[in-house]
């Protein structure tokens, strides 16, 4: 279980994350939404160690990960994919997966054996199959389409067998059809892998269709949490998105 306790982070006078307390149950699928500048990516950056919180706790199965380095946090089981696909352009899809498994098996420093290691193959293969990248194994990451680069980014996080997977706008920069394919893939991963998935998304159609739980952030604070129906009717959420001139059902 991932528990966030009184998490805060300020940049100068701006509170990007303001006393956030949240629980993510094992195996849950949660969407994080909020207007631009709400602190969604900062929230992810704090959980994954890219930023150090000013105060608060990030407890994964009771272990406090707040302020630890990204490699440490990854080893405890929190994986992450990025808004802009973060990949290794010169490596092929397969090399990327194999090298990532090496890192996860603490074999990234091995010098006396030749790459790739036999014991990394099955996991790498499994991740490529899961994300539908097996047919592109010999393509260098730089030559993949934008959608495939996003999938590779997710595969990179998934191949590490995370307990919690954080996806920062998995559909960013995609066309309508590609978006739905991606989000179907995310849902399929969540269902088959039985891991906790938290994703940031701007497309409300997607959010309300697939997320059983939604968290709304605004100015670094939690504005609302709950199931899609409740969020859709929440006056404060409607106001945050549309201003005071709102009408019920505007977020759909």
């Amino acid at each position: 279980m991932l528990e966030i306790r009184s998490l805060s982070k300020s940049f100068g006078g701006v509170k990007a994350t303001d006393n956030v307390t949240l629980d993510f149950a094992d195996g849950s699928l949660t969407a994080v939404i909020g207007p631009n500048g709400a602190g969604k990516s900062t929230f992810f950056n704090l959980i994954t160690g890219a930023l150090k919180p000013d105060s608060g706790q990030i407890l994964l199965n009771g272990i406090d990960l707040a302020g630890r380095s990204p490699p440490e946090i990854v080893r405890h089981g929190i994986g992450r994919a990025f808004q802009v696909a973060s990949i290794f352009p010169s490596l092929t899809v397969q090399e990327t997966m194999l090298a990532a498994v090496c890192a996860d098996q603490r074999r990234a420093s091995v010098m006396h054996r030749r790459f790739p290691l036999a014991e990394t193959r099955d996991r790498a293969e499994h991740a490529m199959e899961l994300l539908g990248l097996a047919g592109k194994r010999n393509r260098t990451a730089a030559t993949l389409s934008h959608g495939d680069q996003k999938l590779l980014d997710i595969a990179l996080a998934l191949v590490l067998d995370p307990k919690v997977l954080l996806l920062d706008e998995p559909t960013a920069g995609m066309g309508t059809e590609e978006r739905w394919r991606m989000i179907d893939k995310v849902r399929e991963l969540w269902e088959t892998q039985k891991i906790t998935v938290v994703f940031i998304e701007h497309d409300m159609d997607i959010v309300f269709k697939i997320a059983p739980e939604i968290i709304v952030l605004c100015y670094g604070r939690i504005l609302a949490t709950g199931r899609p129906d409740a969020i859709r009717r929440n006056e404060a959420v409607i106001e945050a998105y549309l201003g005071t001139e709102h009408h019920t059902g505007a977020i759909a």
Partner: protein
Amino acid sequence: MTELQADQGAQALEIPHAQAKTQRNRDALIALAVFVVLALLPTVFSSKLLLDFVIRCAAYGLFATSLNLLVGYTGLISFGHGMFFGLGAYGFGLMMQKTGVPVPVAFIATLVITFVVALVIGAICVRLKEIYFAFVTLAFQMLIHSTILSWVSLTGGDQGLRGGIPRPPFLGIDLSNQLHLYVASCALLVIGLYLMHRIAQSPFGYTLRMIRDNAMRASFIGIDVWRAKLTIFVLAALFASTGGIIMALFVSGAYPEFAYWTISGEGIFINMLGGVTTFLGPMVGTVLLLILNDTVTRLTEYHGLVLGIVILFFAIGLRKGLMDFVVEWYAQRRNNAGERG
């Protein structure tokens, strides 16, 4: 095409364990064959100039290839790598002059000193990014160079280590004999290249490639980027130091120029000439540079101008090193042939 694909003929990666062992044996056999060919060279060509040329190639080749572990494989552009070449030359020379220990002991002691110095300097430098890393390594190189110049009682100052370096025979090897020195240099070169190639082809080598491509992402898959960079910084320093030891043995001395920034500049020049995307690029660059140096300086006093034009040709004309160009051209040709077939 990546190196891994090139090695495996662009086939899907198949199972590595037995295959990796075969590959390792193949690499070792190639290294042995290269050594045998080099060692037999004097029986075919009796030119002493050729032997001298190969010895210098061994010294600079180890230095340049080790620099490529930083530049090409890790994305760490060091402007101060030459300090370890100088450290190797001075460390070994001083050890032999002042202590009179056997050559192998001085060799190992020099590497230990290099290890410690590289560990301290690396721990500071690899935290820095890009241009800051480049210039702080350069600053450390200038610090070492200045120390050599000012500590006259130990280093001989701007005159260097004078009086020659004693090279007492050991295990039947007499390094004051040119032929023995030649064979020993070839052995060190081949062993050094073999070890560096193994590092480049190991899981650690791929960790370095990931750091070069995207260090932030590498840390998010659990890689300790600082530690990996420090490890390769120290290893590269050890190979550069070995190059310096060969040079000290060759000239029977050590001079401040060995630790001056121009040595680092030459290393980068060699890498640009030969190319940084293939393992043998720096070795090819070394041979090219030494041939250029030797011929151009015989023909004109403006050798710097000629070398400048050559590097402009590679940097602006080809936009890559010679080996990069050849490998790309070959891959293109193979692809075209495949499409036609």
